[in-house]
């Protein structure tokens, strides 16, 4: 059933609408929420919403509980290829839990929290930005690692990144919901403005798998190759930033295990026809983030590499 959960009047004959598809089956009381589209340039979640809605609606007998699907928390951003909310300075994922007395954006953020709190699980799907390509991964604040890592492991993704707490991240949707005791997992995968179908299918099967463990899904879970999810707490994450300004040419496929000394990309100068930097790994590791947008400045993030402690 399609429901409009937030409707805000715009100046000229239009409303900003946030809608959900609420799909229920059986007598189960559990509620799982699938949300995406906070950042208007991230689209990978659209495919996942479409597939989950399609699978559940055609197999209602296998569903025991409610799955609420919210494809667009920032519909104006998605429609205008704008990462944030058009005409608003702050990142929408930096204003939660919002404020009913605040601006339109803060008010919307507050309503979203009220809508989602109390769910048995929220999955917030992001797809990086236009600059970086991410392997399918879950990101968890270390404060919630004990309760969320077991859930996240069932999503069948490649990497599970338990990151440090930072004050500025206290204003994300996931942080706000987790601190209201609504377990929330953040998925990052793919790249902005594109859909990577294979990643989408991987996450769809992971979500069904997790639903089955929670007793909400009795149907089939599409079989995917058995994969070993790497847990970040068994090693270290290194960031590799550009030391020259130029054009980045990647020399590996993403999701790659790279050797020590391997050149994973090159920054070149198109005007002079020269190489400005060979981007090398000092130690072997798993490249889970790689630069997608070619133009780089000094400092632009080129890759994130996970390295096991004993490697």
């Amino acid at each position, binding site marked *: 059933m399609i429901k409009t959960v937030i409707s805000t009047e*715009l100046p*000229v004959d239009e409303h900003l609408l946030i809608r959900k598809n609420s799909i229920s089956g059986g007598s189960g009381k559990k509620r799982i929420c699938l949300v995406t589209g906070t950042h208007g340039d991230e689209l990978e979640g659209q495919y996942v919403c479409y597939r989950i809605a399609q699978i559940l609606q055609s197999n209602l007998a296998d569903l025991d509980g409610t799955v609420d699907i919210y494809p667009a928390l920032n519909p104006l951003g998605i429609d205008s290829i704008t990462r944030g909310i058009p*005409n608003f300075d702050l990142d929408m994922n930096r204003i939660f839990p919002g404020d009913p007395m605040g601006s339109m954006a803060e008010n919307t953020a507050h309503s979203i929290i009220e809508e989602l709190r109390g769910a048995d699980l929220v999955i917030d799907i992001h797809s990086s930005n236009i600059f970086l390509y991410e392997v399918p991964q879950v990101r968890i604040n270390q404060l919630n690692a004990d309760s969320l890592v077991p859930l996240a492991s069932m999503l069948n993704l490649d990497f599970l990144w338990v990151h440090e707490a930072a004050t500025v991240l206290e204003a994300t949707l996931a942080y706000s919901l987790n601190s209201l005791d609504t377990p929330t997992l953040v998925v990052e995968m793919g790249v902005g403005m594109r859909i990577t179908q294979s990643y989408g299918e991987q996450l769809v099967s992971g979500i069904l798998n997790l639903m089955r463990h929670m007793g909400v899904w009795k149907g089939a879970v599409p079989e995917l190759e058995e994969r070993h999810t790497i847990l970040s707490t068994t090693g270290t994450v290194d960031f590799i930033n550009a030391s020259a*300004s130029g054009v980045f040419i990647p020399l590996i496929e993403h999701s790659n295990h790279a050797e020590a000394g391997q050149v994973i990309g090159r920054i070149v100068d198109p005007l002079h026809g020269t190489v400005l930097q060979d981007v090398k790994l000092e130690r072997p590791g798993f490249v889970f983030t790689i630069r997608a947008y070619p133009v780089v*400045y000094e400092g*632009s993030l080129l890759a994130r590499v996970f390295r096991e402690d004993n490697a």
Partner: protein
Amino acid sequence: MKRELLFVLPSPFRDEFRIQGFRFGSGQKSIAIVGAMRGDELQQQFICSQLVSTLQDLEEKGDIAAGHEILVIPSVNPFAMNIGKRFWAMDNTDINRMFPGYSLGETTQRIAAALFEQIQGYRFGVQMSSYYLPGDYIPHVRMMHTGYEDIELAQGFGLQYTLLRTPRPFDTTTLNYNWQIWETQAFSVCSGHTGVIDTESAVDTVSAVLRFMSLHGIIHCRTHPGYFSEVLREEDLITVKARRAGILYCMCKPDDSVRRDQILARVLDPYDGSVRWEVRAPADGTVFFIHDKTLVLENSMLFRIIPS
């Protein structure tokens, strides 16, 4: 005056990115002043340019006090200003959300780190800043409530109001907040406009900064005493939000005294001109902030009123 190149970053396709500083006097690091951090902070940059010019005159007359050093950085983001963008053009990140910066991090973190290194250790730090909401407001000094702030100092600018803000998570990465944490007394001077130059309020702001410097013996300069600055907490301001969307027809301006129920604006239907909503003052007071866009959405912030 010494003009110094404080930071250079090569660009793949444009000229070099440069941050320039103007240093006056020598001795203890007394005050650092930062102008435009966003590409539309024209007023903020203009005020700095006028300060550079005035300080040059003072220096020629020997009126920079001995033992004091002043640093003025009119712009941290000329690249955005030159192409009419607000944020860092490449990735749309806001330099004022990157402090204290990280010299091995992303480009705008590096810019923030380079700037922060240059402006650390000063006794006073002044940022010419714009408000996070688009609009006009009464010029004021803003301080973060971090526990290190000294409100009496802020009153030394002699602007009408001193606004104390309790930081929210997104404030913890701003220059003002980090300056304060690193033991510089930091002030944001909000001169009421962004995107345009208002010479009258620029003159007032330049006077306010000169007044402050003169009060602390950094320059010898005769200034009029200014206002006795009233201290406000941001949470004490009354917010008036739009209950309906449409064309905003505003009927008041910043600093107007208003009475409870007085009509502040009308929201008009953009098709037939009918009045969708009359915006009325919720209490007696003074208009502090007004939304300055022609179109308003439902729930957008229209006014902030200082209750009397």
